[in-house]
């Protein structure tokens, strides 16, 4: 359990807390405060995985969220989460991790044969081959490609963790807690602004946690971080969010944050969510996302042990880990020299500092000299050796346009730096356009498009003191813009860690055979400099084409490490300046973000509200089957004694027609239309005439859209001159209400009428059947139920079981029927009493399926079943519902359009199968021929089909071309095992005279 590469002291890990974890089954130790990467390195492990395409051995390249190589699977509770960055995974006791994309092991991977075959696999090779034999694509080529691709193994089991959500608002959101971010947060908080400070890392401080060669106000940077955090946490207006990544910057300063809550904990409290989505609306945003170091593109730049220089320094200073014993530093800029010095000061041999520049700063050279470090100037790395870890590097001396070999240097690690790239991802997401900064040789944020400012290194402002200064100013200005005032925070001064010089883009020159070497631009996707050049050669001249053709920049770091190098290589191949080639767009998320965080609390019953009616528990207790209608749960049928659906529905139907049935109709939409112009309003909305409808009477209403097609229907009762009770379909309730509001507010604002949804004000119990009156009569007071006083299509107010009631005498079954509307909270009481009364009369509780059969007996349409948005009133034989003398109603003009009055429209008819036992399938097509050839246009389709107990046979409704003219004729329903002959009949079957419902 020794950690041979851990230095004796130093770093921010808790040396007292030793933790045990596994990697590919090997038990290793680390400390609290370690990332998986730092702990592996402490154990001397560099080889952590295999690359995507060529399966090359790969190590840890970075110390941050941009890590492209060191992706691992984390095992927990018997399942695996793939593709987590070892550089972000915090070590806890018992952590189990595995490497990815290798078989059978990371040390020996048969997929590595791809590396040998790589001459066959240049960029875009698959577009050029695998076309013959044609059948092989689906069966051979594609499965092989799919199995070879992909990184880790997907999780296999349902995720039992929970995820939280929080909407938050603040005056100033500060993203990133390095020097600029902390200074901005301090300055903004001092003004009294509401501040949120977030950072993707476990600890606030960013580069300050690594910096040992500077002081701030005379103290160590890490101490300044601690002091600053103390001040911030004491301020009640400040929210501090570590382990929280700002991953998406949306319109109007809406920023999404992903907070990781339990992944770093060994035994998380199950009551805590694993992660939380913060949906933040910020008046002002300060982006202090820092800069990341750029890899150098030289041959074989991908071996384990090759790492970014600042990462090497971070592992040393922050985690107390040496990345090697004998380290070569290859650089094009100053900052990497400090890494060499820090390592040397901890006893690491620095094999050499190889700087691309002919004249690196004298000051650095003299420090190196003082430490006895060999310095090679005008020098590049031209190759590396070592199978699973670098063992040596080839150096080359720049000579004019060429390179001369300059010998081999043995090393067990290589730290490189091509310079720094400001992290402009979030700025870019905010829709800002980056601009090229010639002196920095990189893109930096340009003008702000939203209420946003970048600060510090992400703006290209390097050097500790400059970053602090910029952060303070950004925080102050943000506060001023957000709340109109700024504070007077005292500004700390930093000494040391000044901005360095230098940096380079693109592929470095070398003296090797270009066809034989690979210099990687995008590590994860195995994109080499050659690939980029090939793409350009093939005519891919847009940077987007190059990206898509080579897949450079499409790895899980979204090109943060690779974009600028690829761009430079492309620009040279195209012989155009980089600014003319352009940068690809950075998209959200900034780093990969768990699906669970987006779904957050929408899960299970909370995926969508479950709306239940007052009878729900009662019928659930009777083992009702439910169907989902919109968000409602409706009783579908209520089987008894092992009945199947068919038997249950048959029994329910028969019982309703014989005695009575009770049905919960509470879900129907209900709208109270009130005001002097109520009748006029309905006159304009519905096809029917309303003005002459007497109070106390009801009428069936048909609602069209202005195109002329049926969109809803329902019974409307007139309660008073100025008051109507309108019902709608269950699924159409919200839409009808919104449509009415739309016409009312925007077309007819002059009308004195208002609409109020009363869907949930009333519970509705429908009692239908010959005994319906007998059943309800004992409960009713204040309404004369006699057929003369209260005929079919009446409405009255009174009490029911002692509670206020609106009683409708209406029928959707063809039987004598009542619908009892009582205030919702009384619904359960009333239902229970009615259920008892119905049972006493040997009646039945029935569900929606029975309701459908009973109405089909009568030929009543269901909007959404007989209609599909393309059906007119005439199509379903309902011209009778159109007020003939009305100048206008919604849909009237639409109905007059040529196709709506043309012949050959599909019309509602009844169909009777020749064999009465055969029930047609809903949706089945109607044809003239029994065996129509493929491609024959249908004459129509079956909209509803049931076994009708009342008719003792099957019945069906259908929309058939010119159907009404075909009454009496035989048509066919072609089915896979032969056609079913049917006779066309009128679209109603039962009690055509309506004697029963008028009873």
């Amino acid at each position: 359990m020794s950690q041979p590469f851990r230095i004796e002291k130093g770093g921010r890990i808790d040396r007292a807390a030793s933790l045990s974890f596994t990697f590919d089954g090997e038990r290793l130790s680390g400390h609290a405060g370690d990332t998986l990467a730092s702990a592996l390195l402490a154990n001397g492990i560099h080889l952590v995985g295999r690359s995507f395409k060529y399966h090359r051995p790969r190590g840890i390249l970075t110390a941050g969220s941009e890590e492209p190589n060191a992706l691992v699977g984390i095992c927990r509770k018997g399942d695996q989460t793939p593709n987590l960055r070892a550089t972000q995974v915090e070590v806890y006791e018992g952590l189990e991790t595995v490497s990815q994309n290798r078989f059978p092991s990371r040390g020996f991977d048969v997929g590595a044969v791809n590396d040998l075959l790589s001459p066959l696999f240049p960029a875009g090779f698959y577009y050029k081959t695998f076309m013959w034999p044609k059948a092989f694509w689906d069966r051979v080529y594609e499965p092989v490609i799919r199995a070879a691709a992909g990184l880790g193994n997907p999780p296999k089991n349902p995720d039992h963790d929970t995820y939280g959500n929080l909407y938050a608002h603040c005056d100033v959101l500060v993203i990133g807690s390095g020097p600029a971010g902390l200074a901005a947060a301090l300055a903004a908080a001092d003004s009294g602004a509401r501040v949120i400070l977030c950072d993707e890392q476990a600890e606030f401080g960013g580069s300050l946690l690594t910096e040992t060669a500077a002081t701030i106000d005379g103290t160590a940077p890490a101490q300044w971080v601690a002091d600053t955090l103390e001040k911030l946490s004491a301020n009640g207006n400040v929210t501090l969010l570590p382990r929280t990544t700002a991953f998406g910057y949306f319109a109007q300063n809406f920023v999404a944050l992903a907070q990781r809550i339990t992944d770093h904990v060994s035994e998380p409290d199950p009551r805590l969510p694993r992660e939380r989505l913060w949906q933040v609306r910020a008046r002002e945003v300060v982006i202090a996302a820092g800069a990341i170091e750029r890899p150098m593109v030289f041959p074989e730049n991908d071996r384990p042990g090759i790492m970014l220089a600042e990462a090497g320094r971070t592992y040393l200073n922050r985690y107390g880990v040496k990345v090697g014993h004998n380290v070569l530093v290859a650089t094009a800029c100053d900052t990497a020299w400090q890494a060499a010095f820090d390592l040397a000061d901890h006893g690491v041999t620095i094999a050499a500092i190889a700087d691309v520049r002919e004249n690196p700063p004298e000051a650095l050279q003299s420090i190196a000299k003082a430490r006895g470090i060999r310095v090679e100037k005008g020098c590049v790395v031209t190759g590396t050796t070592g199978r699973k870890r670098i063992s040596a590097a080839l150096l080359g001396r720049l000579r004019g346009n060429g390179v001369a070999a300059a010998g081999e240097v043995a090393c067990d690690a290589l730290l490189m730096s091509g310079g720094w790239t400001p992290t402009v991802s979030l700025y870019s997401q905010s829709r800002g356009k980056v601009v090229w900064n010639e002196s920095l040789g990189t893109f930096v944020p340009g003008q702000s498009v939203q209420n946003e400012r970048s600060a510090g290194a992400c703006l290209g402002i390097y050097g500790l003191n400059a970053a602090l200064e910029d952060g303070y100013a950004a925080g102050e200005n943000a506060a001023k813009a957000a709340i109109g005032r700024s504070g007077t925070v005292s500004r700390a001064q930093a000494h040391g860690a000044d901005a360095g010089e230098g940096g380079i883009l693109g592929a470095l020159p070398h003296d090797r055979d270009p066809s034989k070497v690979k210099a990687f631009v995008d590590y994860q996707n195995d994109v080499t400099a050659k690939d980029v050049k090939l793409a350009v050669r093939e005519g891919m001249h847009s940077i987007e084409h190059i990206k898509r053709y080579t897949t450079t920049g499409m790895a899980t770091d979204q090109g943060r490490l690779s974009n600028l190098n690829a761009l430079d290589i492309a620009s040279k191949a195209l012989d155009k300046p980089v600014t003319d080639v352009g940068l690809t767009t950075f998209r959200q998320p900034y780093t990969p973000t768990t699906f669970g965080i987006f779904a957050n609390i929408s899960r299970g019953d909370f995926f969508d509200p479950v709306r239940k009616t007052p009878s729900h528990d009662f019928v659930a207790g009777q083992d009702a089957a439910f169907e989902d209608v919109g968000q409602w749960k409706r009783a579908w049928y209520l089987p008894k004694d092992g009945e199947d659906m068919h038997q249950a529905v048959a029994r329910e139907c028969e019982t309703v027609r014989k005695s009575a049935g009770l049905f919960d109709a509470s879900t129907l939409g209900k709208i109270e239309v009130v005001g002097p112009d109520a009748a006029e309003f309905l006159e304009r909305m519905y096809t029917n005439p309303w003005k002459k409808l007497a109070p106390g009477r009801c009428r069936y209403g048909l609602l069209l859209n202005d195109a002329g097609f049926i969109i809803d229907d329902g019974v409307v009762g007139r309660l008073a001159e100025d008051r109507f009770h309108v019902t709608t379909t269950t699924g159409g309730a919200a839409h009808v209400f919104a449509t009415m509001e739309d016409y009312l507010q925007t077309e007819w604002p002059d009308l004195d009428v208002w609409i109020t949804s009363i869907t949930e004000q009333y519970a509705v119990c429908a009692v239908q059947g010959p005994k319906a009156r007998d059943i309800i009569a004992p409960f009713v007071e204040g309404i004369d139920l006699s057929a003369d006083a209260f005929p079919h299509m009446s409405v009255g107010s009174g009490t029911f079981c002692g509670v206020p009631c609106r009683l409708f005498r209406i029928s959707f079954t063809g039987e004598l029927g009542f619908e009892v509307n009582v205030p919702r909270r009384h619904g359960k009481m009333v239902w229970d009493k009615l259920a008892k009364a119905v049972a006493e009369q040997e009646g039945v509780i029935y569900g929606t399926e029975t309701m459908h059969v009973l109405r089909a007996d009568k030929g009543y349409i269901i909007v959404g079943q007989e209609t599909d948005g393309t059906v007119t009133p005439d199509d379903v034989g309902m011209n009778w519902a159109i007020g003939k003398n009305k100048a206008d109603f919604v849909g009237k003009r639409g109905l007059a359009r040529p196709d709506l009055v043309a012949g050959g429209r599909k019309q509602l008819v009844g169909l009777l199968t020749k064999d009465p036992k055969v029930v047609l399938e809903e949706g089945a097509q109607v044809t003239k021929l029994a065996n129509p050839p493929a491609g024959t246009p249908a004459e129509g389709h079956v909209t509803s089909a049931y076994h009708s107990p009342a008719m003792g046979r099957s019945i069906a409704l259908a929309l058939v071309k010119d159907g009404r003219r075909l009454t009496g004729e035989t048509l066919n329903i072609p089915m896979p095992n032969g056609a079913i002959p049917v006779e066309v009949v009128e679209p109603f079957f039962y009690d055509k005279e309506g004697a029963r419902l008028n009873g």
Partner: protein
Amino acid sequence: MKHYSFLELAKNAFSAHQNWGRQWRAPEPKAEYDIVIVGAGGHGLGTAYYLAKEHGLRNIAVLEKGWLGGGNTGRNTTIIRSNYLWEESAALYNHSVKLWDGLSQDLNYNVMYSARGVMMLAHTVHDIQVFKRHVHANRLAGVQNEWLTPEEAKEYCPPLNISKNIRYPVVGAALQRVGGTARHDAVAWGYARAADDLGVDIIQNCAVTGIRRAADGSVEGVDTAKGFIKAKKVGVVAAGHTSVLMEMAGIRMPLESNPLQALVSEPVKPAFPCVVMSNTIHAYISQSDKGELVIGAGTDQFVSYSQTGGIHITNHTIDAICELFPMFRRMRMLRNWGGIVDVTPDRSPIIAKTPVPGLFVNCGWGTGGFKATPGSAHVFAHTIAKDEPHPIAAPFSLERFRTGRLIDEAAAAAVAH
């Protein structure tokens, strides 16, 4: 044109791939063309290809304001299917599916058409009615589509959660086995390369700024970033930007352009064998050959050319995916992007002549244009070349909005009772 094959690839490996030629030229525009196609997406490039290949026309330019394939072609979730309800739609999309099968060979460019099956989930009794209607209508029309029980659906797609205890349980599915996916970029590139080979000039970075009309009202040419280009016929195939272009010719369109988002996960090993769609709870998912889960989200509610959408749209998409595939809750979103979809009132496309002689339009594909690429291009080429709608294209006229003869694929979704 160099023939692409494995042999050619091996041969080039010996010369370090130094000898591959350009896949298409970068010509300067000529002063005049017989036909100018505006928009170098899959539909536009395909139109040019079929004009050249099937109608023997050679003097054709495709103008593109950005980079070819950079619009919705390169931004969609690549679902291919033809099990549409109405005969007109089924005919159009099935024409396309037939062309997909064999497109790689026709273009000598592997577009990776993968007929892995598209399964559409039913969650309610109403869904069952609607989907079965589709299945029956499709069978009559000669379009493959079949009904599956939840158990059969799970067998076809093992990750599917068919528990009856979820909020909207899966109650069945319609499966079109010939449906699937293709590699979107390759479609644009393959058509571009093949069209270029037949002499079509593909001119990128050449925005059209005006459509000129002659005294008799007919089209005369287009003003562009590279000057005026004369043309006998102009075909506008510009997806989300169609309204803007047609406005240049004085034509208002029955279109609204909405943001449509899509997203991919990080790549993982094969985990998802087919395409699954749920219109009821709004989720569309497949796995790319690279291993990413490819997920289609919904449209935002307003007109926008911003190519970005709100996070609430993403949230609603992913919550649906996680209900159906709860093991994916720990997967992570790698990239999210937006396109601009042009939506018609009946959710069916317009492939038509316009009131301006010589001006043709192909638009209104909404969220589902990719699948139609070869078929749309093929019938549009015919319509332009013959000055007469291809029989399959005829119902997709502008005229239908006047007469009311809509092809309403969305309408059947109306829920009631």
